[in-house]
């Protein structure tokens, strides 16, 4: 395992950069545990102070230290993204594998449902959801809704892999060895599907964080829990850019962009590693 990582770092620059970026982001998120100020408190420090030794990333107009606020923000955004990705992966796998393996009417019914979900315009639904839920809105609830809406693209992808696997000869061997359908899906087919699931997870995390930021900036989420989007929301509320408090917006943006790029590079380099044929192409034997 360690040798694999070392070789990946040596040969694949994208992997190295991706890991480096993500390491910074995750370190920031972990640093939230050390914060001297609780996340929701305001006016704990003098407001509107620019970058300085006492406050390395400045302070906001609401009297919060940008650095410590940012650690909470990125932690919450990441946790949210990962939660949505995990939940929607489960749905995608379940529906994709079943549709691909069962075929026939089951496949057609599931794909009809799937395509409906692809076509649903997400953003208006989420906004509607906010207006319906209002004060009862919580992050977990939002994560559940997004997971419930975000599985459809990847379910089709997984289904196409499962369709191909069903006609391969080892599936027939498995059937004649007495394996049940569930055993075949979990033991024989899943290992082929997992690499795709892995790379779509990265994309899904990016997507859900992106959507969360969009919703938060517009104020359509719970604005009392700090996330990247909520930080930007409050900055806009206090017209930070006009007032010259640029550090309130710049640093959350930089950090979330680092997250996106890091995840993307990681997904791209892992894809290359996972396929044994392309794995060795970077090595000059």
């Amino acid at each position, binding site marked *: *395992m360690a*040798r*694999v990582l070392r*070789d*990946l770092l040596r*040969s694949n620059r994208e992997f190295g950069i991706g890991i480096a970026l993500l390491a910074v982001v995750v370190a920031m998120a972990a640093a939230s545990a050390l914060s001297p100020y609780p996340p929701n408190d305001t006016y704990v420090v003098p407001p509107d102070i620019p970058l300085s030794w006492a406050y390395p990333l400045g302070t906001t107009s609401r009297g919060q230290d940008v650095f410590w606020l940012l650690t909470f923000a990125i932690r919450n955004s990441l946790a949210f993204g990962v939660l949505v990705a995990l939940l929607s992966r489960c749905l995608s796998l379940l529906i994709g594998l079943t549709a691909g393996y069962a075929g026939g009417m089951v496949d057609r019914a599931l794909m009809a449902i799937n395509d409906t979900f692809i076509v649903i315009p997400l953003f208006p639904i989420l906004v509607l959801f906010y207006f319906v839920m209002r004060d009862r809105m919580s992050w977990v609830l939002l994560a559940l809704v997004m997971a419930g809406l975000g599985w459809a693209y990847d379910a089709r992808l997984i289904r196409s892999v499962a369709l191909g696997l069903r006609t391969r000869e080892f599936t027939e061997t498995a059937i004649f060895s007495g394996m049940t359908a569930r055993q075949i899906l979990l033991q024989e087919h899943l290992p082929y599907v997992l690499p795709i699931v892995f790379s779509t997870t990265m994309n899904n995390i990016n997507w859900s964080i992106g959507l969360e930021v969009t919703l938060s900036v517009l104020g359509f989420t719970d604005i009392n829990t700090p996330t990247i989007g909520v930080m930007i929301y409050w900055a806009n509320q206090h017209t930070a850019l006009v007032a010259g408090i640029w550090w309130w917006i710049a640093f959350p943006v930089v950090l979330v962009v680092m997250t996106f790029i890091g995840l993307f590079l990681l997904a791209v380099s892992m894809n290359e590693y996972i396929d044994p044929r392309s*794995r*060795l*192409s970077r*090595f*000059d*034997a």
Partner: protein
Amino acid sequence: MSILTVSDLRAYYITRAFGIEREVRAVDDVSLSVARNEIYGLAGESSCGKSTLIKTIAAATRPPLRLMSGSVTFDFAGHRIDMHAATSSDIAAIRWRHLSYIMQGSMSVLNPVRRVRHAFIDFAHRHIARPMPEFLDIVRAHLRRLHLALEVLEAYPHELSGGMRQRVTIALATVCRPDFIIADEPTTALDVVVQKDVLAMIRDIQQEIGSSLLFVTHDLAVHANLCDRLGVMYAGRLVEEGPTADLLRSPRHPYTAHLVTSLPRIGDATPRPSLSGAPPNLADPPSGCRFHPRCPLAMDICRREVPTMQTTGTAHRVACFAAQ
């Protein structure tokens, strides 16, 4: 005068990454030569190294395959080229015009979303530098000579049968009248009746153009019906080589003898013997002669030393201590 000379060729697959260290000695010290206007057959079971040998001869080596030592030299009517010392533009200049290939899978040559006509244009137009209408006339004349319907030019590959596609691939490989053709298992995936036709086609075109042909297949019956000379490979080494009739009538190497006697024949219901064991793992081959674990004539010296190719009879070479 040889058109192809392979000297002491060594090509290994070397993997030193991701926790795996492996050296597969796919081609180990192979020397052979092919004369002008000669059909040279290369026989041997899978993982004997013949596909790697082909790749190395065609200078199509990519990591983890590496040329360790030896050379591959072509001599096209005075124009000599060392395949691994030459620049890529030199090699591009001889590809298809002097050296072409017929591969096993026709679908790996023909673009599935373009008509067959485009394959000819893509491959050959650069070498037959004439205006397009004249070029297409040349292509059509070539197809007519091979008794192929001209309609195939307008078809998509999937509209043709497997045998037809392979015939198109052969027409493609021969339209520039190359000096040397490498054929890697071209008829293995075809039905019996189609195989007979395709082999006849290959024979015809070779006789007409006078090109040399390096024909690789594990099927001895095909070699018997096509090749002038035959080379038998086992576990990365050439073990016997000579005129086909000689080799099949009186094989000197025990492995060749086994290949010949294990062929089933219609009209002969006697049980055919089979060899025990399996071909060796080339990452960890046996010491000395690589065939000794399965050889009925194995002696002590076979375990210790590697037999070298010795000539016995006219142009008949054998690498075996028992045969010498």
